[in-house]
């Protein structure tokens, strides 16, 4: 893979963030928080009228972008650290992005360090952090 500092990872857009999968994820994670599937609960909390996506789903979008960049190799991602900066609501459009900040060798392996984030727009990042991916 031709990777240098400044290389941009092909972005991954989810538009719209779907509602039904939040129910599946809630059941699989045994997450009892109704803001992810019960609109009445969201309204009662004054958070609008759309379910709130589970935070780990937002992280998963960024990871899926990185795995796709690595040719679908789940083993390529070595580390990811992210801060959760805001909620994503059902129906939002979000895009995962990443840019390479360093390329290095470690134990005979070529690794790329990246800044990664998930955004609703260029001025509205909802998740941001760093990642390390083996780039062969």
């Amino acid at each position, binding site marked *: 893979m031709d990777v240098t500092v400044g290389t941009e990872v092909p972005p*991954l857009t*989810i538009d719209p963030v779907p509602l039904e*999968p*939040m129910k*599946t*994820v809630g059941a*699989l*994670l*045994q*997450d*009892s*928080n109704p803001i992810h599937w019960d609109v009445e609960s969201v309204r009662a909390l004054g958070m609008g009228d759309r379910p709130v996506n589970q*935070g*780990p*789903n937002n*992280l*998963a*979008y960024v*990871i*899926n972008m990185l*795995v796709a960049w690595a040719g*679908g*190799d*789940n*083993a390529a*991602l*070595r*580390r*990811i*650290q*992210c*801060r*959760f900066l805001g909620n994503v609501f059902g129906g939002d459009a979000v895009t995962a992005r990443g840019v390479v900040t360093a390329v290095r060798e470690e134990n005979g392996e070529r690794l790329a360090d990246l800044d990664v984030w998930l955004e609703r727009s260029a001025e509205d990042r909802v998740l941001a*952090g760093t990642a390390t991916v083996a780039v062969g």
Partner: protein
Amino acid sequence: MPIAIEELEALIGKPFPGGTYAIEPYQHWLMMDAVGGAATRTGTANPMYVYYAALAGMGISVDELFHLVGATAEDGPMFGETTLEAIKPLEVGATYSVSGGITSVIRKEGRKAGVFDIVEFRLELRDASGELVGVNTNSFIFPRRD
């Protein structure tokens, strides 16, 4: 009054009950279908499973964790940060042991936010041979209203 900071600090280093987590093939398929990953029932698991396995296998629920630090979901705790370290790829169909506990507690006060605590916990995943294969570190932010 919020829980005393000394009470929170006393939790540092005390291990969670821990447990095990099996990456069930059908659950991997369903989860990946839900979040847009490769929906597979064999092979290497999506790296998100460092997080999913750690949280599900730590031996207490997230609600119980909130209770442990003197909070409930109604207090509006927020997910602060997460770090996933994949030392060795996780495999769909394999079972992993999980251990860990609270590693730091920081109390802060903001002009707008008021008093809040940042609680960090670290979870280790080990395979059947006992080899460390993944580490997940998370922090939650707990508003402390009177």
